[in-house]
């Protein structure tokens, strides 16, 4: 499959890049730092959910256990998506994620039964990595089409795991139950770490601390202020700003976790809901989930802030140029695809450990493909990928709720459309704001004339959303330039 569209010429690309830049300057939100932007999205989302609940009289959308289960359902998709990110950043389309997840589920379950929970995690990850390696060898060494090889990996992985399961466990479609899985942890707040007791006055202190931290992060860590310091302290200084931002961010998160129970008790619009959501997300978290969450900042760090990451991404953008400056393109592609398989394998392990407690044939249920969609939704970036995976995980959770609870989701979409219209008007995109108004009104009408949302429809809402996002935002998405293209050493001649 060629990704090159004959109608996209270099001139088009330059023009659209200039357009995007102009739109960026008009859009005040796009100028904010990434962390602030994501925090803003989160706040708006919570308010929209709260408003929808108040109008419809439902309370499940922001219940703590809804969000706890949403986090669990997000992790397998998120890990597959992150796997896709690694491979595609090195220019390899990995549609074999599904198969690598399947390998993760089986070998994770087998390792857990044979050796123990943590060994199971490791073996599952290795199983996925082997799947990634097979894909890498077929694509890099033999020049097989990326999608063809991925499909073959999916078929082979399903067959191998079912065969081995029959051979080792004597059953055609499931393994025995796991004796035990890895434990869980309550995410501690700051006062837990300090060993202090939480009292009324100390809450005020925490609130004040949070404000100070936020102001400090935004005000004093601007590049202009850090630059002189960096020069004076070089080379230590070059780490000063990222390190400071990380520490401040972590402290802020710990304070938020601390405040959550207090916020949940407030009977105020949006505040108590926010507290409940944070409590749901932190109350009891499996170590697998913790690893899955940490994998995201770690990926950002490795791919965007190390030499290795720069080389890996250069291979995905322009392998010929990368080769000309001495990057071993083949090795980079193989390493990236193997890591990709390992992450998908971890996603498979998380399915086994968090839900079924055993390997089952067909357990992944297309989550590898969904992961790929979540990554594209997230524009080939870790932050967006996490949001995309969260969207799928949250809707998965809703499909487990009653029809009335999910009915309120229509209202969420309608109100969300209102928020998007505001933004579209600010940035002067009149045409798209009209389209959004029409869509929002249509969904609101749907909400009014029905009493509940059929479960069959809830199940595919995230897919529909992804399709709509791709339809209206695909021009702003930017895959790695050489994604999916065959590459042979010395092809520049």
């Amino acid at each position, binding site marked *: 499959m*060629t990704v090159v*569209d*004959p109608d996209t010429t270099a001139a088009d690309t330059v023009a659209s890049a200039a357009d995007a830049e102009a739109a960026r300057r008009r859009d005040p939100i796009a100028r904010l730092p990434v962390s602030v932007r994501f925090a803003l999205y989160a706040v708006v989302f919570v308010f929209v959910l709260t408003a929808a609940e108040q109008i419809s009289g439902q309370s499940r959308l922001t219940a703590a256990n809804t969000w706890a289960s949403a986090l669990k359902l997000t992790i397998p998709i998120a890990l597959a998506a992150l796997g896709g990110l690694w491979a595609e950043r090195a220019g390899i389309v990995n549609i074999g994620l599904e198969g690598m997840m399947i390998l993760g589920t089986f070998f994770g379950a087998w390792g857990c039964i044979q050796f123990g929970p943590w060994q199971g995690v490791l073996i599952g990850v290795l199983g996925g990595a082997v799947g990634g390696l097979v894909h890498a060898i077929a694509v890099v060494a033999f020049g097989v089409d990326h999608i063809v090889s991925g499909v073959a990996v999916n078929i082979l992985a*399903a*067959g191998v795991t079912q065969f081995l399961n029959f051979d080792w466990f004597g059953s*055609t479609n499931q393994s025995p139950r796991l004796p035990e899985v890895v434990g869980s942890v309550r995410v501690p707040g700051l006062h837990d770490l300090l060993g202090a007791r939480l009292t009324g006055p100390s809450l005020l202190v925490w609130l004040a601390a949070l404000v100070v931290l936020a102001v400090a992060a935004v005000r004093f860590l601007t590049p202009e202020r850090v630059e002189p310091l960096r020069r004076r302290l070089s080379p230590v200084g070059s780490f000063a700003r990222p390190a400071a931002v990380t520490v401040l961010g972590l402290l802020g998160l710990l304070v938020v976790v601390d405040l959550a129970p207090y916020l949940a008790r407030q009977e105020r619009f949006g505040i108590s809901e926010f507290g409940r959501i944070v409590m749901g997300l932190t109350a009891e978290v499996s170590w697998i989930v913790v690893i899955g969450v940490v994998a995201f900042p770690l990926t950002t760090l490795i791919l965007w802030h190390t030499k290795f990451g720069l080389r890996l991404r250069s291979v995905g953008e322009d392998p010929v140029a990368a080769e000309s400056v001495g990057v071993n393109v083949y090795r980079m592609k193989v390493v990236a695809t193997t890591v990709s398989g390992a992450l998908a394998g971890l996603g498979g392990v998380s399915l086994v450990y968090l839900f079924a407690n055993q390997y089952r044939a067909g357990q992944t249920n297309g989550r590898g493909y969904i992961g790929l969609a979540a990554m594209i939704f997230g524009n080939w970036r870790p932050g967006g990928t996490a949001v995309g995976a969260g969207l799928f995980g949250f809707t998965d959770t809703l499909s487990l709720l009653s029809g009335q609870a999910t009915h309120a989701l229509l209202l969420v979409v309608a109100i969300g459309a209102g928020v998007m219209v505001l933004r579209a008007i600010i940035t002067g995109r009149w045409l798209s704001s009209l389209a959004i108004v029409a869509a929002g009104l249509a969904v609101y009408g749907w909400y009014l004339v029905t009493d509940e949302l059929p479960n*069959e429809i809830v199940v595919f809402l995230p897919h529909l959303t*992804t399709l709509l996002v791709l*339809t209206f935002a695909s021009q702003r998405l930017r895959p790695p330039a050489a994604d999916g293209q065959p590459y042979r050493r010395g092809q520049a001649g």
Partner: protein
Amino acid sequence: MTRNRLALTLAAPVLAIVVATIASAIALVLTGYAPGDVLSILADQATSVRDLLRTVNRAGPYYVSGVAVAIGFKMNLFNIGVEGQYRLAGVVAAAAGAALPLPGPTRVIGILAVAVLVGAAWSGLAGLLRAYRGVSEVIATIMLNAIALGLTPFLLTRYFEDDSEGFAVRTRPIPSGGRLPFLDFLIPGGAPAGARFNPFILIAIAVGVVYYVLIWRSRFGYDLRASGSNPHAARASGVDAKRMTVIAMAISGGIAGLVGLSTILSTPYSYTEESFLSGLGFTGIAIALLGRNHPVGIALGAFLWAFIDVSRTALSSATPPLPREIATIMQGIIVFSVVIAYEVVARIAERRDAAEVARRTEDPPPTTEPSTAGAAS
């Protein structure tokens, strides 16, 4: 020269078969089973009329699914959405087939037309998104798959369900005018017990003929293949690439719509979740790969795939029983071997051509290392 080319063309499938056999045998030996046992079961199966009949019955839908995928491949489009297209088309065609007021055998035509239209509309969406919004058809069809798999039970339980009868969730049975007769009379010596000759094979053959004529014997097919192998040259010669994308996707989906009709036009003459075939979309991709997108190749691939499928029953009922999952592994290994074998042979051919051209133009033979010889030409 031509003899060399013929040898190279044959080399790929032979290499693939050898590699697949060896790899399957290694997998069996490693897990403690005798490859000879499996081989003798497969040999028995090849001489049993009943098993061959079951193989052909299974191969029909596989063939149609493989052709649907192959049409996309011919234009470098990847239709992963066959799964959703044929399920949606199947349920709508079954409901329409029972409801439409059509006289006699025209009902069959009506069912076929509805199935083709629904499949074409569903995949056409992906084609439109690809052509006019730049959305990768791979992702679009995966999403449309999920939506179709949700819509199908929704439509079935809320609108199309036959309330007149029992608990089974099914559409109303097709009236007799819309039923194709069994082809048992074609089998010498009559149909063996417990097996019937499904008439769907006629539709599969018709699809194969249409595919061949359309792609290799029509102007449209020439444009389509040109757009697939060199989009820039095709555009220079006046082919509208966007229009071709939409049409190719729609044709692919239209043919995909026919895949599930073997249980609508034949027993049990209605759509039920149990009887309707599932998973054929992904199998179709593998079969199109095996057949190299050629009508005859796809037929061989479909037959081989169905043959291995049928062997599952024999494997698990053998004494001592062999794991039926061997069949799935063999299928996976075969796909991988074929894909890699063709790629390796293509590289060898490319290198030979380069050497041939170099010799004819009386240049000094390429002195660079073999892997760069292709680029040096």
